[in-house]
């Protein structure tokens, strides 16, 4: 089995955006999303993350701080990670942060709550990874619609506060839900709210929402 490794040994030398860029540049990103990863502790101060692709393992070594950054910046993967170490191997801060990022140690996996894709998308968007954020929105909404879980998608749309999200994410929600618009009663209200919010921000332009109406 071949391996691909990239290591981040010092937080001081790693620019956060550079780290994100490296993670998103992984050629196996799609495969990673379809598979699973493992987090293992290496000694006291570093972690090794192994992403299992179809044919190869991809490994990242990092400090705890970087681990948090990676997990926070890669939520689509984070929700698939299996934490292979015992709970006691993490300090409480680490566990708490991992939980907030949607990664739960196996032993309490049964208690896992669905992570908010809006929060995940917003986090990425705020860090300048707009397209990665949109991928999460499209993947999540499409997957739910494909399962016929219209009520969950409708609840998601209903929960959106347009003032807290970028126009790109708002358009992503409207576009990804467009095909099922007749089954999503809250979508019409969201459309109106988005239109109002766009105008409030002075970002209105012709054609911005064309074709997205209910």
């Amino acid at each position, binding site marked *: 089995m071949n391996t691909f490794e990239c290591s981040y040994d010092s937080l001081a030398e790693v620019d956060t955006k550079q780290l994100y860029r490296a993670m*998103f540049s992984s050629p196996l990103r799609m495969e990673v999303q379809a598979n699973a990863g493992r987090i293992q502790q290496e000694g006291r101060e570093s972690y090794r993350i192994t992403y299992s692709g179809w044919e190869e393992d991809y490994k990242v070594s990092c400090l705890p701080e970087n681990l948090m950054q990676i997990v926070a910046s890669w939520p689509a993967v984070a929700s698939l990670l299996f934490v292979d170490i015992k709970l006691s191997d993490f300090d409480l801060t680490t566990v708490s942060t991992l939980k907030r990022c949607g990664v739960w140690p196996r032993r309490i996996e049964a208690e896992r709550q669905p992570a908010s894709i809006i929060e995940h998308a917003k986090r990425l968007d705020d860090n300048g*990874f707009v*397209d990665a954020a949109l991928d999460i929105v499209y993947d999540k909404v499409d997957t739910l619609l494909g399962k016929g879980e219209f009520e969950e998608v409708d609840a998601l749309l209903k929960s959106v506060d347009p003032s807290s999200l970028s126009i790109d994410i708002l358009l992503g929600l409207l576009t990804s839900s467009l095909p099922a618009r007749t089954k999503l009663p809250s979508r019409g209200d969201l459309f109106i709210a988005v239109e109002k919010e766009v105008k409030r921000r002075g970002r209105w332009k012709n054609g911005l929402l064309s074709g997205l109406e209910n």
Partner: protein
Amino acid sequence: MSSRAYTASEDSLVHLEHVAVAITVLPERPGQHHVGILHKNESVPEICLLHLAWHNELKNSRPKPTYLWVTPPIPKERARQVAAFCRRVYKVNPSGIPYAFSSASDCFDKQTGEFMAGPNRYGLTCATFVLGVFHSVGLPLVQYATWPKTREGDNEWQRHIIEQLKENGASPEHISHVQSEVGAVRFRPEDVAGASAADSIPTPFEVANGLAEAILAKLKDPGNPAEAGLGD
């Protein structure tokens, strides 16, 4: 028409705002064109060409410099959404999309983005694939009803495709389906590129057809956009 047509050289790709319609001449069949969608992922970052290359061959690869690309008249915020949908379509169609002459409208599953086979949806051409993607995100490129029912050479082209499908091992059932669609309205690659070059969408046939001629002229002579009618 504004200057929104570029050759797909490295230099020109910096102008790409999320998405464009790209057209080229098929080297093995001069006079026959091929069309796809250039889309950018700024998070990676990368620019790929998503196109239906042939029966069950949906490709997403780096564009060759032989392509000419045109930015459709849509806000860049919407163009970013088209790019996101392109990534989704490629992801959920790992087995490709069949090649046939079905309608472009509502060809992707209303829930998953996957190509939707069914009684009237046997497959797409490279051109209807592009139309289908834009249609699915609420941005239809063409006014479908304005297209002529048939043009010189369309039936011959469709029969040629059927022969190619037979030679390349398409199933008898699929060939039978495609044969039943002979005579369907044909949207040519240059029609789609022409529609994308219009000042607004959806584009009626007469406008798209006129712009298609200019685009084909520029494909023949990429160094002379003004002569082709695509310059400033």
